[in-house]
């Protein structure tokens, strides 16, 4: 009995032990699986799970820093951005496609077929109308169509409309610069997008913001031009008036500070409104002052005179026989404008009366080699380096290619093409004492109101001596006082300048036209201490076509207004100099 009980106890103990072992194993397995799961979640899946949890309580938002502005020299805003909305569709969410297309076409002023084609597409996202007018967007929002969404975008806006459009240019649908300063400084001006992470609640409302530092760091660059809005306005106003009066094909005028090379105004006629640039022909977008080159005609004569005086081969009062209006060069007979028959003329009078034959005689005295060198020194045939896109170089033959006529033709501004900007830069060199300056259109680059880069005046080279410059100023004063430039006289100021009436080359006939002219006037004022240099060129005026009667009055009007605006007193004005108290 006792033995049997002992045996039972032993069996029970071993069963208990077995159970304990089994339970321990189970616990161990359970713990191991827990640890394994924890390891899997916390180590292996860590990154994935963290990002999934962040998605639930965080939202990434884009902060847009719009395209930088363009200012005139007095910080008047010439461009800005406005917020507009673009309309898009998610085609899969649209059930009644035909009905939606009809409504969209009516509200957004679209072609119904093209709207239907867009919303029928299998794509997930299609633009219906980018940067739609606010009225159309409001109307569409009221209808609330399924599958139609709105995205806020920035649109470039030019508040001054046509003003300085040839310089400023315009931007495309994605705000990319396509012309003018907008294109030249596109990389600098274009805005940027900064992504910021924000916390959100269960309803998706944003509850936290940490982007302040980034906001301070970001921001777009803006450009300050040398252009003066007021001078630009005068220039465009008077040029437009004259182009209209003479039913001319086009016109260009430039106002420049001859001492620094700063361009105060460039006017192009006809103009275009950059807010709606696509409504105009592409040729209107051109900046005629830099992208087009012309045969300058008689306004080139001061260059030959300056070169000859500076080279020391002639003096202002040297006399030349002007062959009584008929001069044979090679096999070509050269005459004077308006069939003038000049006899003996001083160099001063050759320029004042704009004698072609006299200019040839001066050029012959100077010689081919020297004339060629001076043309290059004055900057012709090369880009001026102004910060505007599409600048032309102008053209003239290389010296070995000059034939018997070349020296003669170039002396009165034929057989050479120059841009208006090159021409005014060259005349500015005569006005400022003999130094060719790089023309500048940009004054500074700013960011968050601070100047990041300032563009300083840059001299290219000395072209003529100070003495030659003084002698040339006297000659050009004589043109206005007693020569062809009488209509450029401004009461109370001494004006120096030169008229030009260039026959246009007709490629169809292979000769110079007898009906199409470019009328021009180039000059500076006050003559002895020039504050402004102005070039006016009017292409194919109808009726009267002489530079002295078509372009010179425009010069006078622009100069008179600009001098008053710049506070340059005339000799008949009362001027007081007071001590500061």
């Amino acid at each position, binding site marked *: 009995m006792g033995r049997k009980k002992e045996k039972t106890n032993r069996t029970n103990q071993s069963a208990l032990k077995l159970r304990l072992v089994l339970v321990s194993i189970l616990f161990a397995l359970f713990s191991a699986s827990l640890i394994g799961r924890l390891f899997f979640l916390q180590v292996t899946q860590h990154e994935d799970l963290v990002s999934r949890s962040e998605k639930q309580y965080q939202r990434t938002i884009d902060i847009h820093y719009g395209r930088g502005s363009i200012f005139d020299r007095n910080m008047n805003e010439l461009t800005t951005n406005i917020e507009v909305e673009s309309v898009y569709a998610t085609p899969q969410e649209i059930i009644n496609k035909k009905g939606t297309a009809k409504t969209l076409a009516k509200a957004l002023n679209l072609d119904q077929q093209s709207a239907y084609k867009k919303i029928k597409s299998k794509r997930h996202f299609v633009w219906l109308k980018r940067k739609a007018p606010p009225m159309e967007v409001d109307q569409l929002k009221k209808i609330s169509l399924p599958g139609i969404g709105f995205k806020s975008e920035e649109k470039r806006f030019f508040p001054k409309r046509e003003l300085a459009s040839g310089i400023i240019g315009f931007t495309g649908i994605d705000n990319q610069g396509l012309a003018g300063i907008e294109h030249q400084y596109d990389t600098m001006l274009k805005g940027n997008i900064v992504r910021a992470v924000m916390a959100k609640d269960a309803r998706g409302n944003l509850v936290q913001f940490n982007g302040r530092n980034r906001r301070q760091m970001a921001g777009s660059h803006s450009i300050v031009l040398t252009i003066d809005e007021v001078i630009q306005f005068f220039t465009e106003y008077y040029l437009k008036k004259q182009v209209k009066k003479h039913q001319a094909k086009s016109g260009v005028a430039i106002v420049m500070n001859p001492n620094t090379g700063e361009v105060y105004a460039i006017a192009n006629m006809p103009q275009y409104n950059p807010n709606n640039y696509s409504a105009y022909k592409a040729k209107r977008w051109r900046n005629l002052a830099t992208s087009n080159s012309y045969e300058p005609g008689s306004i080139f004569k001061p260059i030959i005179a300056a070169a000859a005086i500076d080279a020391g081969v002639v003096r202002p009062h040297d006399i030349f026989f002007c062959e009584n209006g008929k001069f044979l060069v090679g096999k070509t007979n050269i005459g004077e404008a308006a069939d003038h028959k000049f006899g003996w003329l001083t160099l001063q009078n050759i320029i004042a009366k704009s004698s072609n034959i006299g200019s040839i005689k001066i050029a012959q005295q100077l010689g081919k080699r020297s004339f060629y060198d001076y043309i290059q020194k004055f900057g012709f045939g090369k880009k001026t380096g102004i910060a505007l896109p599409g600048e032309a170089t102008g053209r003239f033959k290389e010296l070995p290619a000059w034939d018997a006529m070349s020296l003669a033709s170039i002396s009165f501004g034929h057989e050479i093409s120059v841009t208006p900007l090159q021409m005014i830069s060259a005349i500015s060199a005569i006005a400022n004492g003999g130094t060719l300056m790089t023309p500048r259109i940009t004054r500074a680059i700013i960011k968050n109101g601070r100047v990041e880069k300032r563009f300083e005046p840059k001299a290219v080279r000395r072209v003529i001596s100070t003495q030659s410059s003084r002698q040339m100023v006297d000659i050009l004063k004589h043109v206005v006082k007693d020569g062809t430039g009488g209509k450029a006289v401004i009461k109370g100021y001494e004006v120096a300048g030169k008229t030009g009436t260039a026959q246009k080359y007709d490629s169809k006939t292979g000769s110079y036209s007898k009906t199409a002219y470019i009328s021009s006037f180039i000059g500076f004022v006050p003559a002895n201490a020039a504050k402004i240099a102005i070039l006016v060129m009017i292409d194919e005026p109808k009726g009267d076509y002489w530079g002295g009667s078509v372009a010179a009055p425009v010069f006078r009007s622009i100069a008179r207004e600009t001098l008053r605006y710049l506070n340059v*007193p005339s000799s008949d004005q009362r001027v007081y*100099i007071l001590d500061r108290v």
Partner: protein
Amino acid sequence: MVLVAATGLMIGAMTFVWGNVRLVGLAYEHQKLDKEHRDLLRENHLLRVERESLRSLDRIQSLAKRKIGLREPESRQIVTVFLK
């Protein structure tokens, strides 16, 4: 003893929750003010654009000459004063 511990725990928890609730409340207020700020900036910008358009020299010249009857001065009517 248990009661004191429970009360302490409760106060601690309440303080923690209150702090968080206050933080979220302030965040909402911040967002509201931020939106108001952005709306005001947008309005200000639009007004500036309108001002710039109205200040167009073409328009001013036309108003000055036609509506008010102003004309440009003769040079003898101008007095220039320079300050040393």
